[in-house]
C-alpha cells in the first residue's frame, strides 16, 4: 500500500453543504495534470498529428474483425436469436 501512496501528497479543497462533500479544488507537486499541456495551443508535448496513428493502432483489432465480417469469414458462427418469439409492449 505504501508504494502506491508515494506521490499522494498535496491538498484537497472540499465544500461542505447540506449532506454533500463537494470537491472544488485539488493540487499537488506531483500532479500529472499540466495546464500548459492541456490547452489546445502547445504542440511540443502533444502533437496532434500523432493522434491519427494512435487511433489506427488502437482500433486495429476492431478493424480486423470488421474486415473478416465483410469477407464472410465469420458467417454461420453466430445465429441471430429469433426475437419475434418475445412479447413486446
Amino acid at each position, binding site marked *: *500500500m*505504501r508504494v*502506491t*501512496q*508515494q*506521490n*499522494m*501528497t*498535496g*491538498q*484537497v*479543497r*472540499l*465544500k*461542505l*453543504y*447540506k*449532506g*454533500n*462533500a463537494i470537491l*472544488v479544488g485539488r493540487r499537488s507537486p506531483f500532479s500529472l495534470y499540466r495546464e500548459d499541456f492541456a490547452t489546445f495551443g502547445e504542440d511540443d508535448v502533444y502533437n496532434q498529428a500523432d493522434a491519427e496513428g494512435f487511433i489506427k493502432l488502437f482500433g486495429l483489432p476492431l478493424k480486423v474483425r470488421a474486415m473478416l465480417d465483410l469477407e464472410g469469414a465469420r458467417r454461420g458462427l453466430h445465429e441471430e436469436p429469433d426475437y419475434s418469439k418475445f412479447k413486446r409492449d
Partner: protein
Amino acid sequence: MPAKHKADPEVKKVVLAYSGGLDTSVIVPWLKNNYGCQVICVTANLGQEEELEGLEEKALISGASKVYIEDLREEFITDYIYPTLMAGAIYERKYLLGTSFARPLIARRQVEIAEIEGADAVAHGCTGKGNDQVRFELTYQALNPRLKVIAPWREWDIRSREDALDYAVEHNVPVSATEKSIYSRDRNIWHLSHEGGILEDPWQEPEEAMYQITTSPENAPDTPDYVTIDFQQGVPKRINGVAMGPISLLETLNELGGRHGIGRVDIVENRLVGMKSHGVY
C-alpha cells in the same frame, strides 16, 4: 441455564472481548459456570464515546479476574482506517467498513493478551447471525490457531434481552437502569451503525431522532463551509493549514461533516453468512 456444549476441561483461562454491555457482562459468569475457568476482560477504546469509567469495576463484580482497558484509537486510525482509505475499499459500493476493520483490531489485542496471560481460549459476545463473529474468529485463526474459541451466543439458551437480564440478576451482574435502545448500534471514531427497530422494514425511512452524529441536510446551515485537507503520502496531516494528529483530525472532521449532514448512508447489504440486513450509517 443448561449448556448445549460439552464443557472443555482444558480451558482454564479465557480472554473475553468485553464491551460492558448486557451481553458481554452476562458472558463473564456464564463462562465461569460452564467452563470453570478464569475470565480476563479486554475493552478497547476505539472512539465509541462511551463512559469507560466504572467498566473495570463492573467487570470485576461480574466475576472477571483481570481487566484490560486499551486505548487503541491511534492504531485503529493509522493501521486500519488510513490503509483502507488508500486502497479506496468500499463494500458493495456503499459500506465504509467501520465495524469490519474494528473487530480484527480488538481480536488482535485479545490474542496478544492471551499470549501474555498464558490463556488457552478467547471469547466474544457476537451472535451467530452476523458478520462480527467471522471477523473476530478469522483474526484469532490467523494469529494463533492454537487458541480455543468460545462463542456463547452459539451455545447458550439465552434468546432475549429478558433472558439475559434474568441471568444477570441471578449472577450478581450490575445492570444499569438505562433504557433499552430499540436500535443495535456500533460506534467508533469512524462510524456509527444502526440496525434493528423500525429499520427491519427496509421501506421505512429512518427517523431523524435515530441519528446521533449528523444533523439532517434539511437542518444543516444554509452557508457552506470550505475545508482544505493536506495529505502527505496518502496520510491526512492538516486541516485548513493546522497540523493535527490522527485522533484530533478525525474528531474535527466528524464534527464539521456532522454539522453539515454529511456521511449518512442507508444500505440493504449482504452478510457473509448469507442473510441480508438493513443498516444505516
